[in-house]
């Protein structure tokens, strides 16, 4: 048998043996690239390169109207945000994105960020800094306390990082008023560990909200009792056929305290067949401490009613009132708003901080800033029609008396340096000059649990406000993503 085989092999011409071995090598190489046995691989796309042998792993930018692509030129981002997805032959646990870019951005567009789609239900992107020119500009004039994390102080209040952090936790920073630490501090890509106390004119009561709110919402709670009960009644509109699971997540800092889930059991809904569901969350908590409650639902679900044991609650960043049919009054201390009318019927004139504004264009996010900035004073937003997405960097409340803002000011494009702002803490490193006017910076993402569809991770490049000035653009020369995860050895012997 063996001799017969040897004879057969000998009869094959040398040339054939050669190309057969080439094919075997070809298969081995591509299987290796599929498995990535070392657990680390880098995918890149050079937009300056003229010839590409394969399609690459990085897909084209979308939507196409936010990017100008001309042959022989680098693609120019002109609208925000810009999405792209990356195919990977297997899953990884970390990604390091390196962006090589040239910018032509005015001073009102100081931020460049990159992100990954972390949650497919609420469509939440985990954004990381690429460039923050506000911080870069302050870098030379402020005193640097540490570089990791970046701590900048207006004056030489602290000499070492340890005493700064112990004072921060105690809520007693040098140069700041004891009960006004939130005004004294600004952060960027950083969540400080600090305890804040709020006082209210009225005593705590149970709360009921009947204003229907569409999609995911996040609340901050500051209960004064040690028991929290929360009941949410939602309507699944079933306008699309996707699953609409509902989640309530109560957390404190980065720790999840309690969670309540409701799976979508109706897997084949007929169009428009509405379903009413109720979800409860009850837990023992510590009184007079700050909690975050996430109502994680898709935009196909409307929160009909919220019943809570405490009225010490505010909504973070976003409100989307729908089908209310009455006038609506909400309160914020933010000096700006971003409003999006979800149809021509939602366009309206509205009042914000006693100034009148006009929301005139449907389906487009419009910005409204108060001409005379009156500090952190509470402002009323008076809307006459609903189905409007209201966004801000701060919080919203339905009650003037129970308003509190636990959000530390962010060094974003709306940031205005005030004399009482003594410190900036940021997890940020500025970009480096790569070549000529091309800059490079990297952002690292944790891929565990992030949304992945059709073997692709979804990334975003965000330059908020880029479309405000037609001369603004961000030319992208190269995108390089280093993925790392478990090696083949770890997968085989250590799972």
């Amino acid at each position, binding site marked *: 048998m063996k001799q017969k085989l040897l004879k057969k092999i000998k009869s094959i*011409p040398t*040339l*054939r043996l050669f*190309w*057969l071995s*080439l*094919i075997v090598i*070809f*298969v081995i190489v*591509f*299987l290796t*690239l*599929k498995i990535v046995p070392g657990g680390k691989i880098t995918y890149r796309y050079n937009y300056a390169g003229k010839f590409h*042998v*394969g*399609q*690459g*792993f990085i897909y084209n930018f979308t939507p196409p109207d936010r990017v100008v692509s001309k042959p022989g030129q680098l693609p120019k981002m002109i609208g925000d945000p810009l999405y792209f997805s990356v*195919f990977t*032959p297997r899953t990884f646990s970390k990604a390091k994105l390196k962006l090589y870019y040239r910018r032509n951005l005015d001073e009102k567009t100081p931020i460049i960020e990159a992100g990954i789609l972390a949650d497919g239900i609420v469509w939440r992107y985990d954004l990381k800094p690429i460039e923050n020119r506000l911080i870069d500009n302050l870098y030379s004039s402020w005193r640097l306390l540490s570089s990791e994390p970046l701590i900048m102080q207006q004056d030489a209040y602290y000499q070492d990082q340890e005493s700064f952090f112990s004072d921060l936790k105690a809520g007693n920073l040098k140069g700041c008023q004891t009960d006004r630490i939130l005004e004294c501090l600004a952060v960027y890509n950083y969540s400080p560990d600090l305890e804040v106390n709020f006082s209210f004119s009225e005593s705590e009561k149970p709360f009921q909200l009947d204003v229907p709110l569409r999609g995911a919402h996040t609340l901050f709670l500051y209960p004064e009792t040690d028991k929290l009960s929360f009941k949410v009644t939602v309507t699944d509109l079933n306008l699309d056929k996707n699953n609409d699971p509902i989640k309530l997540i109560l957390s404190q800092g980065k720790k999840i305290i309690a969670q309540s889930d409701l799976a979508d059991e109706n897997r084949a809904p007929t169009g428009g067949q509405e379903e009413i569901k109720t979800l409860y969350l009850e837990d023992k908590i510590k009184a007079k401490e700050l909690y975050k409650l996430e109502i994680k639902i898709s935009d196909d679900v409307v929160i009909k009613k919220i019943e809570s044991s405490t009225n010490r609650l505010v909504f973070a960043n976003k409100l989307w009132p729908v089908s209310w049919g009455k006038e609506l009054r909400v309160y914020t201390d933010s000096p700006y708003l971003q409003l999006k009318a979800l149809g021509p019927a939602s366009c309206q004139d509205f009042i914000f901080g006693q100034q009148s504004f006009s929301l005139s264009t449907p389906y487009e996010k419009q910005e409204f800033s108060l001409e005379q900035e009156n500090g952190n004073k509470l402002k009323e937003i008076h809307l006459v029609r609903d189905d409007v997405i209201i966004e801000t960097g701060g919080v919203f409340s339905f009650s003037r008396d129970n308003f509190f803002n636990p959000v530390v000011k962010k060094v974003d494009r709306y940031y205005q340096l005030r004399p009482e702002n003594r410190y900036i803490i940021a997890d940020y490193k500025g970009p480096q000059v790569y070549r000529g006017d091309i800059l490079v910076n990297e952002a690292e993402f944790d891929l565990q649990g992030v949304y992945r569809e059709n*073997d692709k991770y979804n990334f975003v490049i965000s330059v908020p406000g880029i479309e405000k000035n037609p001369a603004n653009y961000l030319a992208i020369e190269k995108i390089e993503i280093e993925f790392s995860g478990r090696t083949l050895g770890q997968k085989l012997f250590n799972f």
Partner: protein
Amino acid sequence: MNFFYKKKEKLVFWEELFYFFFSLTTVAIFLEIIFPRIILAYLNINYLILATTLSGLYLLIKNKSK
């Protein structure tokens, strides 16, 4: 005689080259079906199909003229 052998060797080379490209394209398509995009991301299979077609056509022309 020597010339005849050289010509025959040349034809064998083209034959083997065609077989090589054909087998490589088949393997590439097979791998692409099992693991989508793994080949296409690095290499455009159209180039392989083109090489197979060209080598096949050349071989056909040579065989006809023989």
